[in-house]
């Protein structure tokens, strides 16, 4: 019974046509648009309304479900008032001065959103010339150190600055009015304004005096120059002007006076291209130093015999010049003719030579002065007029002070930038003396060994928060500027002194006040105003002039070397008794105290980056150790990993680990200063466990601290200790990884040492073309000059800071898991003078033993002898990082394409895709890939700077912090490349050569690393790629690396390869 249909939808329904009836039977009378929906045409966008609603409904449901996952809320606080100069995401750079040591290299500080994240050398500064050492690079972490004090303390309890000021002022006033003596003890200060502030203080408190004290003293040079020339200064050494340098234990490329400046000059003069002469480097030393490892000739010396060596050299030269000799009973050429040869080499380069000594004995330094006078070096390569101010501490003054302090002569002591309780052999004297003072104040930013014994700590700003100036050399005025508002409630030491001296108030009406930079409390920093005043009195008063100086980092006059030849005022024969006294007993062992390349005097040794930087010679991290010569070790039955007790008179160090060091002179042992600090940072909060303090061994002889100590006793004890080394195999196994030649051969044929024929190489893969049609692409590449590289490791730290490379700690380094993206490979070759190894055996050709098996044979044959092949070693340093292979072995084996090749020749990591099979690292012939074995951030097991919010402020926001389980490696600072490209694009130009610099390149004090675009025909890197010396490491594997090395050229007589 069909109902009567009243309404119909269309005519066909009314008429009930055949088609309509047929269609009505079919429930879906239109075909479902499945084909359309699933087709790729029109991107499947032909969905009808119903489908749209279905998709929409599904999407809403799916999104709602996905949103149920609770993502942690993280707030970004925007600037309420945006500072004019800060654009989020854009870095600002400020020129300043490094405060890690008193060398005061000029720096350029990179800040992001108001936090400094990287320190580099300032290219304008004549001290650093753009380079910066490992210590300086690492010192940025000191700013973000959880150990820093948050405000002043009194007897360990917090106190207000105001109360502190009034209490100290009252105390100082009462002491001064009663005639009590006040001492300001500081490290070397060459800041004109700081010195002026101290003078103001001394004017106010007339009983005050200022004592300079350097942890590692150059007092010997100062005294010698005072005696010889009447000038108590360290001269300027111009290594770039010399043709020969002879060093007696002065590690001028590593730690001596101003290593960055010296490395810049040294490497410039070592350039072989188009040179007639290079700086021939001759070193006599006990410990194998960085300088020794780079010397052309290195002679092992027992340093307590140094007086005999220098007198012998003096006498040889005197003979050549026809002058009078020094008549000393103990004399002779202990180096087996080397002194005569050296004298000859020096004499032929009269006036173009430099002779230096690392000794702190004024008598020896006077003989060195005599030698330089004989050679006429003053006025040519050594400049006494434009002298260095970097070290001014006179040990006699400090010793006098310490004894007076102990005697109760001082009522008040103020310590600024010094820590004598830790780093002075008179530590006990000072501790005693401090108890007798009425007032003791330390400006230390942390509770260091001295500060904890002081009544008040008035913590100073970190140098990155400070205003300051510096005059590291006569005529070079540098400025420091704050690059962040103070992180803690600290106050600049100078400001404290000004407050106490009542100087601050008188500045309020100063004409500069209104123009001042404002501090945290929105007040002009008084010390800034004071600097302006000091600079104004020296002719820089206009804002423009001062701001220009601030912008450039200082005022640098390029004074020529003063040609005045100083008159040599002493008779060396009067020094003979002192010289003879310095000579050690023959059968006794010398202890040579030295500074580790990154830790230096230990001032910033609680810095994890410094500790994890391997010693460039031994590759040991996180410890100091007794560096033993092989002969002594064999004699005493000591092996690597053993423990010894070191005893010298009443001082002893128990259970020291040993390292048998190739190149260590027989009858000497080395020990690094700067370890054994008390503190809490580090592995599981025990920084005291990092090495042992060697400062108590320092003796005081001939009015200077002496770091060479004859008569040390070594006693093997039971137990063992594993040093954390980043490299444990030391011979190159005869492989052509490092290529070298001599300068003579180079002059004959620039391809010398680099003329192996590489066979025709085949590849499975298509060769990459970095020049796509149209616009030419970049092809990033790097050239590393092995002849310039000294191995100083500044690049290692610089890279770590730039690329957020985690510190992993001693235990992990022991497991060989350090994360450094760049490392310096160091190989020893043992000189086989005695023919211990059969040269006819094709395995061991040449005068040097480079193979493990050869060394074993030689050691066996040398049993019972002096192991001379261990004393005479040749060293090469080779920086090694990802080679960015054109045909990369890592890329083909990654199952997930996490490491791929960019169109610009970079081998790039995609961390997000990495699943951590580690196959790439196994297949990397250069072993430069680093795996995140653990999570290194926010992990209490790795309690370094990545484990606290403060430390994490140093993280470079442009570089991902890697998570556990992914592989990482050198990216050639792709973030800098990107930034450079963006900048060039915005300015509508092509990228200029040298505009983008990698972190390692920026840090390098030797200019050994050049980065650039080899597709750019004018680029420096392209020129180096075409240089005859250039080669690829493991070229025979056809990896087509984007990194090329340049042969090392030694200025030796004959090829020792």
């Amino acid at each position, binding site marked *: 019974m069909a109902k009567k249909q009243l309404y119909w939808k269309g005519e066909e329904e009314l008429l009930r046509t055949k088609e309509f009836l047929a269609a009505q039977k079919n429930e879906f009378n239109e075909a479902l648009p499945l084909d359309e929906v699933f087709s790729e045409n029109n991107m499947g966008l032909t969905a009808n309304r119903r489908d749209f609603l279905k998709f929409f409904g599904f999407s809403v449901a799916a999104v709602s479900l996905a949103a149920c996952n609770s993502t942690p809320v993280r707030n970004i606080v925007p600037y309420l008032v945006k500072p004019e100069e800060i654009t989020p995401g854009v870095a600002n750079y400020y020129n300043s001065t490094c405060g890690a040591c008193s060398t005061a290299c000029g720096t350029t500080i990179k800040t992001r959103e108001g936090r400094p994240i990287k320190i580099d050398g300032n290219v304008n500064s004549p001290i650093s010339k753009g380079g910066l050492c490992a210590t300086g690079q690492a010192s940025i972490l000191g700013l973000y150190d959880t150990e820093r004090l948050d405000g002043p303390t009194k007897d360990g309890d917090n106190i207000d600055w105001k109360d502190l000021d009034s209490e100290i002022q009252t105390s100082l006033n009462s002491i001064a009015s009663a005639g009590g003596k006040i001492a300001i003890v500081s490290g070397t200060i060459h800041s004109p304004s700081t010195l002026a502030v101290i003078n103001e203080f001394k004017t106010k408190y007339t009983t005050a005096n200022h004592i300079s004290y350097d942890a590692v003293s150059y007092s010997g040079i100062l005294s010698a120059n005072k005696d010889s020339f009447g000038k108590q200064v360290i001269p300027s050494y111009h290594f770039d002007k010399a043709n020969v340098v002879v060093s007696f234990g002065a590690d001028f490329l590593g730690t001596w006076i101003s290593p960055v400046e010296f490395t810049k000059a040294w490497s410039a003069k070592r350039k072989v291209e188009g040179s007639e002469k290079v700086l021939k480097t001759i070193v006599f030393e006990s410990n194998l130093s960085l300088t020794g490892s780079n010397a052309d000739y290195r002679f092992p010396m027992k340093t307590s015999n140094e007086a005999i060596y220098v007198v012998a050299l003096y006498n040889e030269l005197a003979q050549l010049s026809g002058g009078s000799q020094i008549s000393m009973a103990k004399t002779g050429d202990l180096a087996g003719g080397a002194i005569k040869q050296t004298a000859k080499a020096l004499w032929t380069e009269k006036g173009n030579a430099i002779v230096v000594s690392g000794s702190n004995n004024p008598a020896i330094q006077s003989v060195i002065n005599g030698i330089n006078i004989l050679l006429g070096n003053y006025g040519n390569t050594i400049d006494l007029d434009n002298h260095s101010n970097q070290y001014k501490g006179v040990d006699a003054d400090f010793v006098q002070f310490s004894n007076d302090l102990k005697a109760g002569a001082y009522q008040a002591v103020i310590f600024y930038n010094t820590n004598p309780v830790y780093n002075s052999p008179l530590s006990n004297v000072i501790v005693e003396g401090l108890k007798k003072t009425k007032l003791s104040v330390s400006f230390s930013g942390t509770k260091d060994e001295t500060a904890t014994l002081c009544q008040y700590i008035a913590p100073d700003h970190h140098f990155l928060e400070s205003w300051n100036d510096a005059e590291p050399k006569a005529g070079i005025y540098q400025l420091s500027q704050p690059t962040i508002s103070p992180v803690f409630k600290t106050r600049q030491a100078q400001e404290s002194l000004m407050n106490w001296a009542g100087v601050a108030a008188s500045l309020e009406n100063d004409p500069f006040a209104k123009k001042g930079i404002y501090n945290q409390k929105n007040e002009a920093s008084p010390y800034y105003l004071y600097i302006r005043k000091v600079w104004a009195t020296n002719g820089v008063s206009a804002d423009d002039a001062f701001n220009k100086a601030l912008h450039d980092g200082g005022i640098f006059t390029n004074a020529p070397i003063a040609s005045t030849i100083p008159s040599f005022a002493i008779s060396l024969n009067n020094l003979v008794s002192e010289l003879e006294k310095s000579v050690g007993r023959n059968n006794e062992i010398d202890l040579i105290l030295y500074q580790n390349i990154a830790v230096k005097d230990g001032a910033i040794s609680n810095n994890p980056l410094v500790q994890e930087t391997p010693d460039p010679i031994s590759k040991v991290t996180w410890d100091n150790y007794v560096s033993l010569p092989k002969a002594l070790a064999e004699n005493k039955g000591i092996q690597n990993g053993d423990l010894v007790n070191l005893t010298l008179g009443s001082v002893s160090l128990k259970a020291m680990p040993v390292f048998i060091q190739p190149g260590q002179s027989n009858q000497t042992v080395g020990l690094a200063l700067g370890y054994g600090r008390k503190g809490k940072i580090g592995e599981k909060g025990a920084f005291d466990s990092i090495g042992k303090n060697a400062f108590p061994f320092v003796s005081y002889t001939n009015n200077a601290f002496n770091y060479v100590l004859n008569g040390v006793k070594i006693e093997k004890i039971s137990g063992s200790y594993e040093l954390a080394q980043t490299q444990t195999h030391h011979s190159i196994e005869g492989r052509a990884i490092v290529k070298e030649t001599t300068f003579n051969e180079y002059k004959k044929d620039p391809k010398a040492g680099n003329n192996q024929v590489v066979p025709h190489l085949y590849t499975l893969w298509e060769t990459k073309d970095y020049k796509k049609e149209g616009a030419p692409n970049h092809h990033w590449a790097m050239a590393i000059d092995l002849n310039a590289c000294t191995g100083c490791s500044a690049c290692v730290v610089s890279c770590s800071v730039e690329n957020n490379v985690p510190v992993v700690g001693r235990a992990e380094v022991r497991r060989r*898991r350090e994360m450094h993206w760049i490392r310096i490979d160091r190989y020893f070759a043992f000189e086989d003078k005695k023919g211990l190894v059969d040269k006819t055996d094709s395995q061991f050709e040449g005068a040097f033993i480079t193979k493990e098996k050869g060394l074993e044979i030689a050691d066996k044959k040398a049993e019972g002898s002096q192991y001379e092949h261990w004393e005479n070693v040749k060293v090469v340093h080779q920086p090694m990082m990802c080679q960015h292979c054109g045909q990369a072995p890592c890329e083909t084996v990654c199952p*997930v394409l996490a490491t791929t090749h960019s169109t610009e020749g970079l081998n790039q990591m995609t961390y997000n895709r990495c699943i951590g099979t580690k196959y790439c690292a196994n*297949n990397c012939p250069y072993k430069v890939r680093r795996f995140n074995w653990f999570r290194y951030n926010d992990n209490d097991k790795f309690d370094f700077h990545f484990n606290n919010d403060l430390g994490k402020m140093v993280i470079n926001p442009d570089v991902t912090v890697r998570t556990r*389980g992914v592989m990482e490696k050198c990216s050639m600072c792709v973030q800098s490349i990107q930034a450079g490209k963006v900048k060039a694009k915005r300015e509508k130009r092509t990228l200029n050569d040298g505009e983008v610099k990698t972190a390692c390149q920026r840090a390098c004090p030797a200019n050994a690393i050049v980065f650039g675009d080899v597709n750019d025909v004018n680029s420096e890197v392209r020129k180096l790629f075409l240089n005859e010396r250039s080669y690829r490491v493991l070229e025979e594997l056809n990896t087509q690396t984007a990194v090329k090395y340049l042969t090392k050229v030694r200025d030796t007589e004959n090829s020792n390869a």
Partner: protein
Amino acid sequence: MIHDSVIRPKLVTGEKTLHDVTTEICRPIENKPSTSWKVGFTLAVIFFGLLALTLTITMLYGIGTWGLNKTVQWGWDITNFVFWVGIGHAGTLISAILLLFRQKWRMSINRSAEAMTIFAVLCAAIFPLFHMGRLWVGMYWVLPLPNAFGSLWGNFHSPLLWDVFAITTYFSVSLVFWYLGMIPDIATVRDRATTAGRKFWYNFFSMGWTGSVRTWNRYEVVSLILAGISTPLVLSVHTIVSMDFATSVVPGWHTTIFPPYFVAGAIFSGFGMVLTLLIIARKVMNYQDYITIGHLEAMCKVVMLTGTMVGLAYITEFFVAAYSGVVYEQYAFINRATGPYWWAYWSMMTCNLVAPQVFWFKWARTTPWFIFMLSIVVNVGMWFERFVIIVTSLHREYLPSGWVMYSPTWVEIGIFLGTFGLFFTCFFLFAKFLPVINMSEVKSILKNRE
């Protein structure tokens, strides 16, 4: 169908009747477990627990809990992986290749050999999975699923991706082959079942097997097809595993000899493990009549042959290295024999090349306790082979600056021991709940089946 010569030695001894076969092989399934089973199973489960513990530690803290370092980034993990995969070779070889070659002696051992294969591959799979730094991400990226990002696939150049395919294919085919072969026997157990649970489960897993001529016919055909598929897999799996090494640039890995050398080694180790297991099983379960001295002797011959083959490969590697004139290659091999891991190399040589030569003597091939000892030696030797290839090649390769030593931590050792726990747990369960000998096939080779 059966065309055996009457003068051939019997493959099953003890004058078994068809009924004897059924009752004897179903005995462990139908009775309460023996004390020795209980003790063995408990031990296995304890070690399995160790596996769970050590893997949990690895996942919680990271691969850093292992002894690997910046140079040796594969150590015990991949050594054990290759070791277990190698062991997993004998099963398929016995059931597939010997089936195609009509080697009837395989019939009483193929079931347990196949079970061993599957359990060994399970154990092997743990290592490549857990050696990944980020397993959770790895599961996602390795499988090349087309996705919304466009053409984001795995890297088909990478041998590791080939590995994923090779091993999953091998595992699934072996599993199907094993299960298929068991259906008639499960049906037998079902038919004999007295308890409700047993009836239900064996009924379920017998998939309605009726024993009709048609089902038997299909069964035979599918077996043959699967055997055909499995045969190339026997060769392909270890070939591809060997390519993990052979396609790299590491001196000591980069060798064209690897595929045949690895396959021979795998068969060698697989038979070694089969011998170890069966000598215990035939004793404990009293199956000497089914797994006869003849079986053991045949397997010993295979062991001797393949052992000599790998030995030849070891010597060939040395020759090629010397002949190549490549210093890195030469050093890699000299270092194997005389370097700090010399003991591993000489253990390998002794166990794999020298020891199996005793099987030239009939006594050695026919004395079960002696074969058992030798089978252990073979297993140890093959483990050392993988250790030598992986660790001693990696620890000293191109740049001497990166040369290191490697030793495992307790976590790695725990994982390795734990996989034995997993393996034996599986094997004990198999021996308890499934017929360890293929009854239906064995019945076809009984001489007195009339």
